[in-house]
């Protein structure tokens, strides 16, 4: 079987003439990191890679960096999406920020991406890594000296452990075979249920403790593909002034409520907000809870059906059950 990285490069090369730019990943500052890559010349396509380190959701760039709705000529944007990323892409189409025709989408069925910090906890001395790959239920890390094997449960991102959509929802070209999700629909909200087992005061304490670490760098918002307000997020605007510059718990708590409520019924559970957080705060949980409510109440999941309208942006006069 051909290496997926090679296939990826080849597929883009085939259509490169019609593309203005290709969004993919390339090796990062060390052998355990990948970094987003904007390829504008065919000769650079060989920089692209695909492996379990390619964690960034590239859809984040579509509205906030590229302004993908405005095209100069007929050229398309080439983009690589994992399962979760593709949901963000669909959601942006649903909300009419972008159009499907603008994109050449290379979908990659994804077994999960590595949480670098979790890996470090288990094996802090890993270096000179030559290859990182997923084999069955294990992550295989090949270094110059030896090959390490880690159970996926211990080293994948939280989002991947609860992923129900490992296969891209939309694509023009699929790299590799579709895979079966690691978990069934019934376990998808297991992480939320864990918190719901706490009593009400204990939940509050849990969030107070977690959110207390927040330094309000807003990385969770900036990394979010669906935070589309560009530079006018109400967390920062002075008119209206929702938040002060203070950094006490109330402000932090409220900031996260802003992000969560604005993502209610829109969040695609890509987990970027949590992955990027330097203080390791499990903020995706908050949005996931809202998603669960929206699913139960309004029978809707964001980023699945390009034709559907997000339910909080519309209404139904004959609504039952509310």
């Amino acid at each position: 079987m051909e290496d997926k990285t090679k296939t990826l490069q080849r597929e883009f090369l085939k259509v490169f003439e019609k593309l203005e730019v290709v969004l993919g990943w390339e090796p990062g500052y060390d052998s355990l990191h990948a970094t987003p890559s904007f390829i504008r010349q065919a000769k650079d396509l060989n920089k692209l890679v695909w492996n379990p380190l390619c964690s960034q959701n590239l859809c984040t760039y579509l509205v906030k960096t590229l302004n993908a709705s405005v095209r100069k000529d007929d050229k398309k944007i080439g983009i690589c999406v994992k399962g979760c990323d593709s949901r963000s892409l669909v959601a942006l189409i649903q909300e009419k920020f972008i159009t499907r025709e603008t994109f050449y989408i290379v979908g990659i069925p994804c077994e999960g991406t590595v949480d670098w910090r979790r890996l470090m906890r288990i094996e802090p001395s890993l270096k000179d890594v030559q290859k990182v790959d997923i084999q069955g239920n294990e992550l295989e890390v090949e270094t110059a000296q030896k090959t390490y094997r880690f159970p996926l449960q211990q080293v994948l991102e939280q989002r991947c452990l609860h992923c129900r959509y490992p296969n891209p929802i939309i694509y023009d070209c699929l790299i590799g075979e579709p895979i079966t999700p690691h978990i069934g629909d019934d376990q998808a909200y297991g992480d939320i249920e864990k918190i719901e087992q706490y009593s009400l005061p204990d939940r509050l304490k849990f969030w107070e403790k977690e959110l207390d670490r927040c330094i309000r760098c807003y990385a969770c918002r900036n990394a979010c593909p669906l935070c589309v307000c560009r530079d006018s997020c109400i967390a920062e605007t002075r008119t209206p002034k929702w938040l002060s510059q203070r950094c006490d718990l109330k402000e932090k708590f409220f900031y996260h409520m802003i992000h969560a409520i604005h993502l209610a019924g829109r969040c695609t559970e890509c987990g970027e907000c949590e992955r990027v957080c330097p203080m390791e705060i499990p903020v995706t949980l908050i949005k996931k809870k809202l998603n669960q409510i929206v699913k139960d109440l309004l029978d809707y999941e964001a980023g699945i059906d390009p034709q559907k309208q997000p339910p909080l942006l519309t209404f139904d006069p004959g609504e039952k059950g509310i």
Partner: protein
Amino acid sequence: MSEKIFIAQGELTAMLERLSKEMDVWVPVEMGDEKWGIRFLPYHEDTIVVLDRQSTISPKNVVFPQVETLLRFRYQKDDNDPSKQRIDLKDRQDVSSALVFGARPCDVRGFHTFDQVFLNGRYKDPYYEQRREKTLFATLLCDTKDSACFCSSVGSGPGDREGSDLWIVPVDDGYVIQALNDKGRKLIPIMGKQATTEQIEKAQRIQEQVTAKRIGEYDLTRSARDFTDRFEDMDYWRDMVSKCISCGICTFVCPTCYCFNITDESRDLEGERIRSWDSCMFYHYTLEASGHNPRPEKFERYRNRVGHKFSYFPDTYSGMISCCGCGRCIRSCPVSIDIRRVVHHLKEAVDAEV
């Protein structure tokens, strides 16, 4: 001869306990259960100190808190003339003394940058000055570099003792601690017992070994001109950093980033004037009242970050680079932007790399 003491690993907590009776002792602790990141927190019982890796966020907040109250104010009706209001002002209270235990050489070096700006100019910043004077640093010789570290590239190194008050060298199952100045010497008696000659010699050997190490392959100390030459090369900046999402993590975790904002935050008739961390990576940082923004694009903001550290700052402060090579901005960047690479390539075209 300066006194050197030895603290066994098992006695560390007891020592910190003793110290914490004298002052606030800030130590590196984990973010939470099963988390990898480290931050500095005031020591209290049950604190588990983690010294085997660098903290995610630098201890700059000990001297330069994320939010500092500069003054409090309250409007009051003038009883004699109801049409008038009086403002009562309350100055900030004194701060207590503090010890940062287990910082790294790069963390301490970060304060050199701060000192230039807040102490060595025409005006002194009283808030910073007070905390700076009252804060001591017990610094750990650093033998745990990772792939993001580059302290030697910017003129420092893993054995750099400059700016520290106490110096900690891990030896066998403990630490040899030595005072580097009078401030540090005062604490020595509280800390522990005299080290043996053997331990001292061993510490000396480790010190020499580590000091000889060079962390970081490039030399980035003379990049000021390269930066100005490259300033208008938009392709360079787009190529290098159009992936930046402008999140501000790099500036918040950085030991040398000192930009701040001052705001009055009030409710009803009272409030505070606070100084809080700001970030040049934020759109609002340069947004002018007219609505014009000189740095509307993300890559322009990143360019400013590089320029400030490697060009404007050395131009203003006799060649000093305002980056200590700690690598935090690289490690924590969600898109893995590597400042070393960006600065290194200022000189030659990127293509030359491949």
